C-alpha cells in the first residue's frame, strides 16, 4: 500500500507529496511490530534508494515470512532528489536541521512535523544517508552518546562495519534521528558510500542487516544471514582527521578501508597548473581508512580522509 503522508501544493500546478509504502502480512492483525526505513532527507544521497528497492524485493519473495510491518519512505525530500539538490530547493535549507518541525510552521517545518508524526512509534527506524558528494564512507552507524545504551546493542545486528558513538552537540538536536530518539522512537543513522552514486555491495550488506534486525524484533520469521561484528569507537581520540593543507586535486594512492602504518602515503595533492605535488598526505597513525575523499578538488581544510586507530579495531 502506498500512502501520502504529507503534501503541499506548489505555486504552479504541482503537488509536493511525501510517500511511504507499507508492507504488512495479509489479514488484520493487531500489535504488530513496525520497522521504518527512511532515506532521501538529503537529495544528493542515493545509496538508500537501492536499499528500499532490494528490501521490498526480498520481502515479496517470501511474504509468508513477514510477521510485522515494514514502512519504506524512499524520498523525504522529493524535490531535492529530483533536482540533484542536497537541501530543500528554493529554501536552501538542510532538511536534517528542521526536525521535529512545526505543524503550524512554514512548508518545510510542516513537512518535517508530519514526517515525525508518521514515523514515531516505530519499534525501530533506520535513517540511511550516503555521506555527501565529497567523501566515501564504509558502511557505518553513527550514534549520539546520549542514546548509546539503547542503540548500540541494536546497531550491532545491522551488519555494518563500524559503529561510531560521537559526542552530543546542540546543533545536532534538530536532526531527524535526534528528534525521534528523544521521544522514545529508536533511530539508527546509517552512513555509507558516497553522494550521487549507488554502491550495490554496500546496499546488499545493509539489507542483510535490516533482515537480521527485523528478525530480532519479530518482524521476520525467515532465514537471516550471519552478520559481521562491527568495530565500535566511543572515544573522540580514536579517529584521526586528514585535512588538506592547501588547495589542489587529491589523487589517492590507497584503497578505501585499507589498513595503514604510520607514515604510509595516502595520497597526493597536485596542482595541474604548476605540474607540482603540493602536499603528500601520509598516515599519522597505524589505522584503517574508513573515510576517503571521492571528489578530487580540495581547498585548504578540505577533509580527505578519516582513520580509525589500530588499537580500536584490534580490540
Amino acid at each position, binding site marked *: 500500500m502506498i500512502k501520502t503522508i504529507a503534501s503541499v501544493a*506548489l*505555486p504552479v500546478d504541482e503537488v509536493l507529496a511525501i510517500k511511504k509504502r507499507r508492507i504488512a502480512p495479509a489479514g488484520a492483525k493487531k500489535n504488530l511490530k513496525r520497522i521504518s526505513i527512511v532515506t532521501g532527507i538529503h537529495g544528493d544521497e542515493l545509496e538508500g534508494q537501492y536499499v528500499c528497492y532490494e528490501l521490498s524485493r526480498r520481502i515479496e519473495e517470501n511474504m509468508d515470512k513477514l510477521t510485522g510491518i515494514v514502512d519504506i519512505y524512499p524520498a523525504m525530500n522529493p524535490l531535492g532528489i529530483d533536482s540533484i539538490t542536497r537541501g530543500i530547493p528554493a529554501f536552501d535549507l538542510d532538511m536534517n*536541521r528542521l526536525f521535529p518541525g512545526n505543524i503550524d510552521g512554514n512548508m518545510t517545518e510542516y513537512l518535517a512535523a508530519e514526517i515525525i508524526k508518521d514515523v514515531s512509534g516505530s519499534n525501530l527506524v533506520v535513517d540511511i544517508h550516503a555521506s555527501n558528494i565529497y567523501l566515501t564512507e564504509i558502511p557505518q552507524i553513527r550514534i549520539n552518546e546520549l542514546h548509546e545504551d539503547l542503540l548500540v546493542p541494536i546497531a550491532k545486528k545491522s551488519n555494518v562495519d563500524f559503529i561510531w558513538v560521537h559526542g552530543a552537540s546542540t546543533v545536532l538536536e534538530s536532526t531527524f534521528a535526534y528528534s525521534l530518539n528523544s521521544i522514545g522512537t529508536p533511530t539508527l543513522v546509517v552512513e555509507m558510500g558516497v553522494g550521487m552514486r549507488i554502491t550495490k555491495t554496500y546496499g546488499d550488506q545493509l539489507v542483510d542487516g535490516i533482515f537480521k534486525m527485523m528478525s530480532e524484533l519479530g518482524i521476520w520469521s525467515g532465514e537471516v544471514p550471519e552478520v559481521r561484528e562491527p568495530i565500535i569507537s566511543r572515544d573522540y581520540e580514536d579517529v584521526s582527521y586528514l585535512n588538506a593543507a592547501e588547495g589542489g586535486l587529491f589523487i589517492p594512492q590507497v584503497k578505501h578501508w585499507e589498513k595503514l602504518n604510520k607514515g604510509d602515503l595516502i595520497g597526493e595533492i597536485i596542482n595541474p597548473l604548476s605540474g607540482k605535488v603540493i602536499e603528500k598526505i601520509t598516515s599519522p597513525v597505524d589505522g584503517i581508512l574508513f573515510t576517503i575523499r571521492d571528489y578530487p578538488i580540495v*581547498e585548504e581544510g578540505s577533509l580527505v580522509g578519516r582513520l580509525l586507530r589500530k588499537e580500536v579495531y584490534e580490540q
Partner: protein
Amino acid sequence: MKKRIVYELNGLYRDSLRVTGYEFGKGKKSVCIVGTMRGNEVQQLYCCSQLVKKFKQLEEEGRIASGHKILIIPSCNPYSINIQKRFWPIDNTDINRMFPGYDLGETTQRIADGVFNEIKDYKYGIQFTSFYMPGEFMPHVRYMDEGFSKVEEALKFEMPYVVARKVRPYDTATLNYNWQVWDTQAFSFYTTTTTTIDRKSAGQCVLSIMKFLASNGIVKYQSNGRNQKSVVIDDTELVTVRTAKSGLFESLVKVGEEVGEGTPLANIVNPYDGEIMETLYAPIDSKVFFMHTDPLTYANTAVFKLV
C-alpha cells in the same frame, strides 16, 4: 585608518580569499562590526562600506575617543559574493554556522576560526545579518535573551525596535552566540533589504551605531538631540500571517505601514488564470514588521510578521 588582512586562504585557480579589516583608533578593543557572511548580503556590505566612510571622517576630525579601537570587517566571504552564491562555493556550508571555528577543521571552520580569533576580545560586537527567507524587515536590532548582551545596551542604538530572540539549537554555532560566550555584548542588525541596496535603512543603521558609540563615549557625535525610545519585543510576540495557498504573491501594503484589523495585506493569485485564491487580512491593529518579497509563495509560508 589601518587596512589589513584579517584572514587569508589560498585558492586553487581563484585569487586568494582575503578577509579585510579596517581599524580606527588605538587602545582597547572596543567595538567590532562584521558585515556579510553570505554571498547575497549586498545591503549588509553596503552598510559596512558606509560605516568605513563615516569612521574615516571621524578619525580625520579627531572624534574617536582615545583608548578605543574599532574594527570593521565588511565581508568575511568575498568568494561567495563574487559568484553570487549565498553559501560557501565548494560545499555550500554557511560560515555563520561554524563559530567559534576550528583551525584544524574544514575550510569554513578555518575561516570562522581565523576571523573569530581577531574579533573575539571586543567589548561590543555588531553583526549585519540576513533572514533565511526572502523579505523586507523594519530595521531593528536583535539580541539573544539568555546571553551576555544587555537590553540596556541595545536601547542605546535608538532603533525603532529591539527584538529579544529566544536561543534555538542552531544559534549555538552563530557569531552572535559565540561572541557572548567570550563575553562580548553582541547585537545583530537587520536592515530593510538583503539582495538590493536600500540607502535609507543603511543610513538609519549608520546613525544608530553612531548614537550607540556616542552614548558609550567611544566617538564624539552630535545627534539631533531627540532620544528615540525603542520598543522592546520578544520574537515570539510578533503576529504571523501565513498563506493557506501556493501561488503568485501580490502585496497590498508596505513594510512599516500601519494596518488596522481587517486591512487586506496581500492576495495569492492563481498563476494560470489570475483568479484571487486567497486574500490575507491583518488580524489586529498593527504595523508590518516583515513582509515576504518573492513573487511566488508556498502554502503555510509566514509572509507577514506584524508588531
